[in-house]
């Protein structure tokens, strides 16, 4: 084994740090995408709910496509499309761009469900009490709808954290790609994948538990 020592070295403590840093980047790109995607998704969902056929025919169709094509194909497609139209985008920007639209497509559906959950009678009642359209939206639809769809929104956020693993295809050094690099160097796939899995678990499990607790608080 002495001649292979220069190529492979054992798993070290500093590698955990490397994985931790990569986990931070996973968290970073997910946070950016979830924030932008949720903001866009709220607008799209509201538009889909309020204007019937026009928004449905334009935004609805586009978002439907983003939900029906594998994320990995979307990422490769856009990453290769940006240079064609002359935009210079690195892996992070391209990845965050696609992930944001993908999130928006999922969130739009959630938001639409939330506005639906409030129901027309409630909104008519708000309007007949003298509230303006925007007041109705802000003080009636928002608080009621939010509670109705918060669990689904958390579900979307969790799935985006996990799906961000696919940005590794563009060469972005996030958690899964970092673990692959370590596997190549140390030849210890099992330990390293277990560590990467633990990091993912640590990112997503507390969030799902926290949302459950929040829900129970609202229910009581």
């Amino acid at each position, binding site marked *: 084994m002495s001649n292979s020592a220069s190529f492979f070295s054992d798993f070290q403590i500093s590698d955990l740090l490397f994985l931790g840093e990569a986990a931070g980047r996973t968290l970073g790109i997910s946070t950016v995408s979830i924030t932008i995607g949720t903001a866009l998704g709220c607008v799209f969902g509201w538009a889909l709910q309020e204007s019937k056929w026009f928004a449905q025919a334009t935004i609805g169709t586009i978002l439907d496509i983003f939900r029906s*094509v594998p994320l990995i*194909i*979307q990422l490769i497609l856009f990453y*290769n499309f940006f240079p064609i139209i002359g935009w210079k985008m690195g892996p992070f920007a391209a990845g965050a761009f696609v992930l944001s639209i993908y999130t928006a497509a999922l969130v739009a559906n959630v938001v639409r469900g939330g506005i639906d959950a409030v129901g027309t009678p409630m909104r008519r009642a708000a309007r007949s009490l003298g509230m303006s359209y925007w007041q109705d939206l802000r003080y009636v639809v928002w608080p009621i709808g939010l509670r109705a769809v918060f669990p689904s929104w958390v579900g979307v956020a969790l799935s985006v954290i996990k799906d961000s693993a696919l940005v590794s295809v563009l060469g972005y050094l996030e958690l899964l790609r970092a673990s692959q690099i370590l596997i190549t160097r140390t030849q210890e796939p099992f330990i390293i*994948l277990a560590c990467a*899995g633990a990091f*993912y678990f640590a990112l997503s499990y507390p969030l*799902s538990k926290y949302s459950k607790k929040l829900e129970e608080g609202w229910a009581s």
Partner: protein
Amino acid sequence: MDYNFHWRPVLRKLPELLEAGLLTLEVAVLSMLLGIAIGLGLALLRMQGPTPLRQIATTWVEIARNTPALFQLFFFGFGLGAFGLHLSPYLIVLAGLTFNNAGYLAENFRGGFLAVPETQVRAARSLGMTAIQTYVRIIIPQVLKIVYHPMTNQMVWAVLMSSLGMLVGFRELSGETQFFASKTYRIFEYFAVTAVIYYVIVKIILLASNLLARRLFRY
């Protein structure tokens, strides 16, 4: 914009791509069938299994739901290699998708079973039905109605997830596309056509599921 689109080489390979699409569909359907069987078992174990088995089922479900599908695929691909177990790309994708499907479906099934009140079992039994009759005629039809929609979603997810096969060397629709794309450097064109094929596959599944639902839940 000084880029010339070349669609002809892609269209020439269309028959191969469509055939790879069938392979995608095959692995998705198989993983779904296996996933339903295992998911049902996991759901029942979580509800009324002995403690050690219940813990194993819970661990399975939590790992499947809290880690990326690609991670699960890598685990079956490289992770098992640590134990000298080397699966073929087809088996890696099938095992990874089945593991994931079973985890998600188990939660759906559990929700479905919990939604049917337990009093119905007792009512059916006191009417003289056997345990099997109770399950087949009373419980399963109601549970099926509740989990039908989530199951359709999972089927769509299985098709979309199978695209990860290209990262473990499986030549399904995405893998085949990447193979051709890297040969001709027409990456954008190839993947654009593949995106359309995926879209059509998903739409066909949803349509079929709607037709089936209309037939199943007529009452």
